[in-house]
């Protein structure tokens, strides 16, 4: 048998699924549902952290579903990058979930909010774990179906109107994903990511790559870039996120774009960018990264609606992380992994802060805010908001600094130094945008009286459950701050993630620990892949040899 700890990976997907299903018959008992959901996200968070701490730096954990060896069955892979993403996503889910207790109206909550959140997190976790392109499509679909439901929950008119943009764009992307997966199967005869990587590397070496290889990469790029909100395909994002309830906007803003980025980081270094091919893709990605940052910063400076400004700041982060992925050295990938993790926490925290600000002012229009710091009880919210803004800008005490530092340092040394310079400039613009937000909300003169009537939404009950709202926000902002002050373990994990992404052989050896694939050119098991590959492969040997 393989190392049984590997099978714990499955729980990360199964727990949200079971909890989500459990919530369906209990949907009217909101308290019970809340407990179930909180348990689910805490459990996945703890599980991801434990696996990272116990096994993370030793290698890649692989679980083959049903015991079917790698390229035939479904494979779940847990490496340092997926571990970081899983932990951060679960934490974001927990924080926004806590926040939703106080902020969502009871009626909305009973409309299957709890099952939808759980199932969405199941899809998210599965897409972080899967080692198979088609399974990735299925995971995306689970996540998207749940997110469509969450997007229109409550069903305001603006919500419905913007939902069509999101739904139609994502359905288009899903169809393209199916086509691209079919093309990949037609070209390579496999959909396992590790196997695809092996075949593509071999064919690049022997100059026999299929003709449409780069086109295939572009198709996948379209799909993932649309999910991530990369420049030409980002237009749906700042429209849809501001319309849903703020707890859900925080969850989407924290998690969903990062799934797309993760898919890019996972598949492109492994499959589509080989020695002999895919340089066009790198150039496309680099330009897209620069434009995403730049347009995001301009948008954040241009708009005054707080939710929209935050959505655009989210896009700036997407641009930086994408740049880190594009540079594709171990160091830059480390920076990207770190930056994606912290960006999840910070953006979700900022969205929640925005919700608390709206609770006080009754609007998200920054022109009608001002002087919030002077109001009673707003000091701590101000502190959290300020810390969050610093995290987005990436100023030293917060966690955003390290990620940006590494990405830009590696980027300026590489061939895309021009994008690095854009990144530096965008950093200044982001600072400007953050200062503008800060000075119009918490500082600055309070708005004139006739301009700020008590127009707070009558649908939201006045101040019920404030504790849980503050708890959720403080959890996320505190976690992002802790990542800055106690960065050592996270940086260590991110460095492992960077190394693993930059040298695909580790991933390949772990997933394809199957004697049939012990190809003649394969060297003896290097010390690098570690015990996951070695201990997994050897006991299988007599069993598998019988079939041949």
């Amino acid at each position, binding site marked *: 048998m393989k190392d049984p700890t590997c099978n714990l990976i499955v729980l990360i997907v199964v727990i949200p699924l079971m909890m989500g299903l459990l919530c369906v018959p209990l949907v009217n008992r909101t308290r019970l549902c809340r407990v179930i959901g909180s348990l689910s996200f805490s459990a996945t968070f703890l599980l991801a952290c434990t696996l990272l701490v116990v096994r993370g730096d030793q290698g890649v954990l692989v679980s083959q579903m049903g015991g079917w060896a790698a*390229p*035939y069955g479904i494979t779940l892979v847990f490496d340092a990058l997926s571990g970081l993403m899983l932990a951060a996503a679960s934490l974001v889910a927990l924080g926004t979930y806590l926040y939703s207790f106080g902020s969502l109206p009871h009626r909305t909550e009973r409309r299957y909010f709890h099952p939808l959140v759980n199932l969405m997190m199941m899809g998210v976790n599965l897409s972080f774990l899967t080692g198979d392109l*088609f399974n990735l499509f*299925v995971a995306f*679909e689970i996540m998207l*179906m749940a997110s*469509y*439901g969450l997007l*229109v929950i409550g*069903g*305001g*008119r*603006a*919500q*419905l*109107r*913007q*939902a*069509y943009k999101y*739904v*139609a764009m994502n*359905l*288009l992307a*899903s*169809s*393209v994903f*199916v*086509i691209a*997966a*079919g*093309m990949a*199967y*037609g070209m*390579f*005869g*496999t959909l396992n990511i590790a*196997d695809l990587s*092996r*075949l593509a590397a*071999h064919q690049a070496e022997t100059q026999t790559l299929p003709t449409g290889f780069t086109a295939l990469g572009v198709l996948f790029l379209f799909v993932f870039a649309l999910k991530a909100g990369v420049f030409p395909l980002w*237009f749906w994002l700042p*429209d849809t996120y*501001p*319309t849903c309830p703020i707890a859900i906007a925080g969850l989407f803003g924290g998690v969903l774009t990062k799934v797309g980025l993760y898919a890019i980081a996972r598949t492109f270094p492994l499959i589509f960018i080989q020695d002999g091919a895919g340089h066009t893709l790198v150039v496309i990605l680099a330009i897209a990264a620069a434009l995403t940052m730049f347009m995001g910063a301009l948008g954040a400076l*241009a*708009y*005054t*609606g707080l*939710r*929209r400004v935050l959505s655009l700041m989210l896009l700036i982060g997407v641009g930086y992380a994408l740049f880190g992925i594009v540079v594709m050295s171990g160091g830059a990938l480390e920076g990207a992994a770190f930056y994606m993790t912290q960006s999840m926490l910070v953006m979700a925290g900022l969205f929640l802060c925005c919700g608390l600000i*709206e609770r006080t002012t009754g*609007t*998200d*229009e920054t022109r009608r805010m001002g002087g919030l710091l002077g109001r009673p009880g707003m000091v701590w919210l101000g502190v959290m908001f300020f810390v969050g803004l610093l995290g987005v800008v990436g100023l030293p005490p917060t966690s955003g600094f390290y990620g940006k530092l590494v990405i830009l340092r590696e980027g300026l040394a590489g061939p895309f130094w021009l994008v690095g310079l854009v990144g530096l400039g965008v950093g200044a613009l982001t600072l400007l945008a953050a200062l503008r937000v800060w000075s119009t909300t918490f500082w600055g003169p309070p708005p004139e009286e006739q301009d700020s009537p008590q127009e707070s*939404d009558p*649908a939201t009950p006045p101040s019920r459950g404030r504790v849980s709202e503050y708890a959720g926000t403080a959890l996320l902002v505190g976690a992002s701050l802790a990542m800055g002050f106690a960065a050592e373990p996270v940086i260590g994990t991110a460095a492992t993630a960077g190394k693993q992404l930059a040298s695909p052989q580790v991933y390949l050896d772990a997933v394809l620990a199957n004697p*049939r*694939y012990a*190809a003649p050119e394969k060297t003896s098991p290097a010390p690098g892949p570690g015990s996951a590959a070695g201990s997994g492969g050897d006991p299988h040997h007599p069993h598998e040899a019988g*079939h041949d």
Partner: protein
Amino acid sequence: MTFVIAVCVAVCFAVSVYLLLGRDLKGLAMGVFLLGHAANLSILAMSGSPVHPTDPVALLKTTPIADYDTPTDRALAGMVDPLPQALILTAIVIGFAVMGFMLTLLVVTARSTGTLEVDELAQPGDADADPSSESSAPQGAAS
């Protein structure tokens, strides 16, 4: 046969893109469904032959079930590759769920706003108490 499927895919794509670009939400939904059909058909066309052409590195296309018998070539001669069909089956099921969701969304939209035209839906109604409704007005001009 591949040519026929290719023509079908092309026609499906053309019609669905036409529908997706329309101003009617019913057309949008139909376009999305047709797009799914086009995608499934194209998988069928692109899945290729069951055996990988004599590439020793690519082992997978010898299907695992036929692999246990010794005369693999004879078994494979009468088979098509089963995996693309499994993929299509999955995609059909997912597409079905999506179709159900889209139709529900259409019904809900029609009930709550009384229209299924994008142009009429895009006008911020007076019942629109959402805080973001104001900020979405300049956005339309910007994009």
